[in-house]
């Protein structure tokens, strides 16, 4: 309200306030492409700068002539206009010279492109699959597989708490790669077209359902590198970033064996005895990551579009159907199959929905344990 009294300065003041109040890491100097940290990314950066400076040079020359004319050839200064309206020599010159400049640009550009397409096997091969709205990584040699979801809290997005330094650029699982080795990415998608972009590696390839695209990189500098989805893929296109961490070989090897351990541990977890509370706690996390976008935190869904889970007949009274829907999705509706989640996660999230929002009191209150999911997958004949 104070702003009203500032009259015509209110907008300027808002802008100034925003500048001061601006979150950390807002950046007036974020002006140019990154050099990145690979040979190819540096080459791409140099190419970009070359073309840029050529354009600047051409612009300066051309606009100098134009601005000069706008200054010196006004009606006041030049009351009688010249009459020339053609000059074949000049026209040929300014057709040929730009053509030659273009050839000069095309040569280094073509060379760099051929290098990028030099598509040979990697020391590490990672299948990257785009989902709505997260990435799945599958290390082919070591048989490790995991999802990476945005880990920025919704509270930050909806301006309830201050934004962290890596706002919208942080995930719950980083992609580790060893330095000094050739890494090949095999990029595809599960549903719609996404695109996997790592600016620091100068890699961008579309993730197309049913097809595989390849890209490669060799990173020599350890560090954390952040990328983004660059093809409109629906609601949360802006909320599925990528984080790759390049580490020394021994740290990489250790991570690989830990991940393999995790897979083994998960198998153990599937068979252990779970309490309802343990399942609900675990399920709440799974729900927040996978279900909240449509069914909402309060389980109410969105009327007419996503059904409510709170008070739902299936969730209350039909444990079999409940499991079936999670395992197979619903044909002709937006509900996908979530069978790619682990048995523990599936059991936990179904149990959570059956217990939360008063569902435990209003329905049969039956919980689902990991073994139920394992059983569902057994042959029935």
């Amino acid at each position, binding site marked *: 309200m104070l702003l009203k009294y500032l009259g015509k300065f209110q907008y300027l003041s808002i802008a100034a306030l925003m500048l001061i109040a601006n979150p950390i890491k807002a*950046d*007036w100097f*974020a002006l140019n492409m990154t050099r990145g940290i690979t040979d190819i990314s540096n080459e791409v950066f140099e190419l970009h700068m070359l073309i840029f400076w050529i*354009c600047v040079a051409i612009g300066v020359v051309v606009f100098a002539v134009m601005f000069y*004319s706008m200054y010196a050839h006004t009606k006041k200064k030049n009351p009688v206009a010249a009459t020339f309206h053609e000059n074949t020599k000049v026209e040929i010159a300014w057709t040929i010279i730009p053509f030659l400049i273009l050839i000069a640009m095309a040569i280094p550009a073509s060379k760099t492109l051929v290098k*990028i397409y030099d598509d040979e096997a990697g020391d590490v091969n990672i299948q990257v699959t785009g989902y709505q709205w997260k990435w799945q990584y599958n290390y082919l040699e070591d048989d490790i597989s995991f999802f990476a979801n945005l880990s920025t809290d919704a509270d930050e997005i909806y301006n309830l708490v201050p934004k962290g330094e890596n*706002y919208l650029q942080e995930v719950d699982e980083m992609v580790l790669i060893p330095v000094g080795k050739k890494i090949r990415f095999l990029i595809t998608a599960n549903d719609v077209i996404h695109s996997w972009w790592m600016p620091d590696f100068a890699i*961008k390839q579309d993730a197309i359902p049913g097809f595989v695209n390849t890209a490669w990189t060799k990173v020599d500098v350890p560090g954390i590198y952040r990328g983004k*989805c660059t093809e409109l893929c629906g609601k949360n296109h802006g909320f599925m970033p990528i984080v790759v961490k390049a580490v020394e070989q021994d740290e990489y090897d250790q991570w690989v064996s830990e991940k393999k351990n995790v897979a083994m541990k998960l198998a153990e977890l599937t068979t252990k005895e779970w309490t309802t509370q343990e399942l609900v706690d675990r399920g709440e996390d799974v729900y927040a990551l996978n279900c909240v976008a449509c069914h909402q935190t309060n389980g109410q869904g969105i009327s007419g579009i996503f059904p409510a889970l709170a008070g739902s007949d299936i969730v209350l009274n039909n444990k079999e159907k409940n499991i079936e829907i999670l395992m197979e999705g619903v044909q002709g509706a937006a509900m996908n199959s979530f069978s790619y989640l682990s048995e523990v996660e599936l059991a936990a999230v179904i149990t959570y929905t059956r217990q939360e929002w008063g569902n435990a009191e209003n329905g049969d209150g039956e919980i689902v344990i990991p073994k139920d999911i394992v059983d569902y997958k057994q042959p029935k004949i």
Partner: protein
Amino acid sequence: MSAVIENHHEDHHHGPAKGLTRWLYTTNHKDIGTLYLWFSFAMFLIGGAMAMVIRAELFQPGMQIVEPEFYNQMITLHGLIMIFGGVMPAFVGLANWLVPMMIGAPDMALPRMNNLSFWILPFAFFILLSSLFMEGGAPNFGWTFYAPLSTTYAPPSVTFFIFSVHIMGASSIMGAINVVVTIMNMRAPGVGLMKMPLFVWSWLITAYLLIAVMPVLAGAVTMMLMDIHFGTSFFNAAGGGDPVLFQHIFWFFGHPEVYIMILPAFGIVSHIIETFSRKQLFGYSSMVWAMLSIAILSFVVWAHHMFTVGLPLAAELFFMWATMLIAVPTGVKVFNWIATMFRGSITFETPMLFACAFVVLFTLGGFSGLMLAITPADFQYHDTYFVVAHFHYVLVPGAIFSIMAAVYYWIPKWCGNMYDERLGKLHFWLSFIGVNVTFFPQHFIGLAGMPRRYPDYALQFADWNMVSTVGAFLFGVSQLLFLFIVVKTVMGGKKATDQVWEGARGLEWTVASPAPYHTFTTPPKID
């Protein structure tokens, strides 16, 4: 018999019909031109309002104003409305008003089809806009509507979107046919092809492009319709189809489409620069050949929109080189405009201000286009705000400025009154500053790594996004001033002479201001 003839003869002298039905049933090219222009202005303001919603959300990081689903609807509709409701109808309106007069013809070749071409447009946009209120919301897959996001995963309104696109396409095709038949057959004796005004040439070429590619767009949306409702698999890998096929078909239309949106601008700017430099346009025949080369080349560059799709190396190289080549004829045009001004006798009335800004800022857009053509660099630019900056530079201070320039330039001929020069200049400067403050920073945020079609962004992009939003609001509000200026001029103002502008040449300046309802009912004598 003679009584009938007499009656008919008298009707001519009584001028246009009175009331609303005049506009509904008119077959007069001037009326239809006016209808198209007002329609496009309305759509420009609606599309602009959506841009304000988009920029308001992007003023700061975080979601403040709309949800991501709705944001996607805004960016989709903004694009569709500006392209199919703003730029294209405006150029058709200018063609309707000017082409017959410039070639000494009494009207367009097919006046009744002309009426139909216009009136199906409000119908199409009513359908498109009403999709905002349908269950599932409006189309949310971007104006480029890639499959399968726009087929398997589309909201129910997609069917109305397809219907709407079919109608807009039909309108453009009919309009284009009308333009070609008119120009090829109704020029007054003495108006040879290489004597035609450049605006007429630009529209002749544009019309051929429209006839060639709008049906391909119709094919693409028909295939979408079949995939969605009739179980086909054009774009569905499961059934043996290919999402990339959609992109090839779409961009085969899409690339010529962007030249459709700029060639008439080239024509307009040539007229205005010639008039206000008081000097004949430099290199007339090269200007014609340049436009022809651009049009032909536009058919073989489409995959430069698809460099990251996984095309084979040979294809990427070919499309890179062909795309770079288009810079040559485009450069020739820019040089010729400057050569026209050089040693001319220039005054800077509002049309000339817009035309000069066009030359500079469109060229800037051309430079970012050249950078985008370089495939390895494009891997870093594609689908970022760098692309958004590029196409807004060529479309806003490009196409839109040329339309505004055309309005200021020809409105004294259309309605007989001069616009207010001081207000016109004010509108120009506000728009010029607005457009640059809005779009120049978008080069930065694109290069720094912000993708397009994002409703929210990481913190390092905050500063320039804020600046861009301020510019957008400035630009948006300035267009209300433009509305005021246009209405004020139509209602009254200093009376315009026939010639209007000291250096103006062309048949349209030989008739009275305002132009009589029927002009050149007998062909003019050309020396």
